[in-house]
């Protein structure tokens, strides 16, 4: 039993890697533009399908799809940014409906092009077991977890050290003050969208390489990313990281101890608990949201 629990903690930790990438992208865009991009999960979804296309149509290793996925996700990100920035009134709610619509378009496009079938990789070597003492994982899971952590570290470095990263943080915390400091908020917004796209593309390839994909996945990834940011209390990378791993672990534990059917339920229950008991998130400072 202990071995099983230990194993699910480990699997959950590994899946938390890609969750973190997705949630960080969502949080980044929310930070600069104060909108929640409901098509965010679909950027991940289409990236995943790029990996599928590479493997099944061109018969190459899905990892090589990363540049293509990068282009697709960033393109979507820029289009979403462009459309959202054209909203003149009541941006907060209208952008929600607009990106909800874009999500519907992308999900159904995937459905039309690739059908509702479930796909997963059969690339050689991906499913090979890696054993670390009592813990087991697929090689692709471990590889992508490490890659995600590298990317998160890079993001952290970028936000704290580079000029653009600091501009993003400045705009997130106080838009007007940032303007006075000579930062162009619009350019910062585009940059945050593109960075979210980069994170999403890697997450997409990771999800295809380690699990199964289907068109409906996009919407559930957006929800999951949102839940993670609520758990984290928007605004801190470590918070999002812990939230993502928490969701991953809770899901894995549920599958082990109960059934895979309610896998998502426990994550949501956790979310409700936080909403009721700790409205500022697990790590949030005491401040009002939104």
């Amino acid at each position, binding site marked *: 039993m202990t071995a099983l629990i230990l194993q699910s903690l480990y699997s959950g930790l590994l899946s938390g890697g890609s969750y973190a990438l997705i949630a960080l992208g969502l949080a980044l865009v929310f930070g600069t533009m104060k*909108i*929640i991009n*409901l098509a965010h999960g679909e950027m991940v979804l289409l990236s995943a399908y790029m990996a599928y296309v590479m493997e099944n149509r061109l018969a190459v290793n899905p990892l090589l799809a990363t540049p293509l996925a990068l282009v697709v996700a960033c393109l979507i990100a820029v289009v979403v940014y462009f*459309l959202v920035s*054209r*909203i003149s*009134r*009541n941006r*907060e*709610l*209208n952008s*929600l*409906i*607009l990106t*909800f*619509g*874009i*999500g*519907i*378009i*992308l999900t*159904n*496009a995937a*459905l*039309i092009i690739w*059908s*509702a079938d479930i796909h997963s990789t059969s690339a050689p070597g991906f499913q090979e077991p890696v054993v670390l003492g009592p813990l087991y994982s697929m090689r692709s899971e471990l590889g992508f977890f490490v890659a995600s952590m590298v990317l998160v570290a890079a993001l952290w470095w970028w936000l704290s050290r580079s000029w653009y990263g600091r501009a993003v943080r400045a705009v997130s915390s106080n838009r007007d003050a940032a303007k006075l400091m000579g930062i162009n908020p619009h350019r910062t917004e585009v940059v945050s969208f593109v960075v979210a796209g980069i994170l999403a593309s890697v997450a997409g390839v990771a999800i295809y390489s380690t699990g199964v994909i289907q068109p409906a996945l996009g*919407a*559930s990834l957006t*929800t999951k990313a*949102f*839940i993670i940011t*609520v758990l984290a209390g928007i605004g801190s990378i470590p918070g999002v990281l812990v939230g993502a791993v928490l969701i991953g672990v809770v899901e894995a534990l549920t599958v082990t101890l109960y059934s895979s*059917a*309610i896998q*998502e*339920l426990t994550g*949501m*229950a956790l*979310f*409700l608990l936080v*909403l*009721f008991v700790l*409205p500022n998130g697990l790590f949030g400072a005491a401040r009002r*949201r*939104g």
Partner: protein
Amino acid sequence: MRVRVLIPLLVIVLYGVVPFALAGNNYVMSILVAALIIAGVALAWALLGNLGGMVSFGHAAFFGVGSYISAIVTMKLGVPVFAAMLLGGAGAAVAAVAVLPALRLSGPYFALAVLAYAHIFKILATEFTTITGGAGGILGIPTLPRVLGYDFGSKVGGYLVIVTIVLLFALVYARIRNSYYGYALRAMHDSEDATRVVGVHSTLLKALMLFLSAFMTGVVGAFNAHCINFLEPDYAFSSGWTMLPVVAAIFGGYRTLTGPLVGAVVVYTVDQLVFKSLIPSGHQIIFGVLLGVMILFAPDGLIPLLAKKLQWVRQPRGCRDPRTESVC
């Protein structure tokens, strides 16, 4: 003036002309009933959006809860169908209590929190197999009954019931909108503090709108269950029950009373008759396009747009009163 002529006319058309004109055509009749089901939910959604100032992406939760409760109490407890439909609505309102903590969240947070609730309810319905029949679903849900010799279980009977439900809801909505509660609620979106400082208990009013919207959605969901006589979690809590009403309300104009209704009938019929045959799998892509186009080019929706056009024809210059638009 205009309203006094229009309403009796509408009633005559809806109750007199339509049932007889379409009585022989079961296919069109069932599309119309389905469109009115969407219209009912769209109206409830728009009530929450326009009066409560809250956008929800989870009305499927209330729809599903209403349909399951009504189905179960008729089948397991023998409650008469019409009473059960009210219980379905009440159950959905009770389910909305679970959403209350989300009320203190601002706009986008609320919208997404409700989405998460819809997921939770769907999973619960799948898991509580003893009550809901689980993923296998419930078969043989009783149809609408025969009352005073008239069979409401027929296609026309079902139509008359849903038309009445939707009209009653519209009436309630209109009454609230033109009451002090409605004034305060509408004033709240732009400046909640401005209303609270004059004594408006804003959270309570918003909660009431949430309950009412959930109740309406639950009743419509219950009607639907007795109409198709079959339920399964993936169907009853399908995200379509959220998406279609949102599209209908945004297309017609969610801040008007007629917008969601007209929007639902137009969007649903066109989708069923045209796009479903053009793109059998993935025809919902058109809903996404519609949402995008409306938000970018006509965020107020079709009805205010038409009203403006008409007004412009009638009085070519000036004196456009912003308030007459909300009368539509």
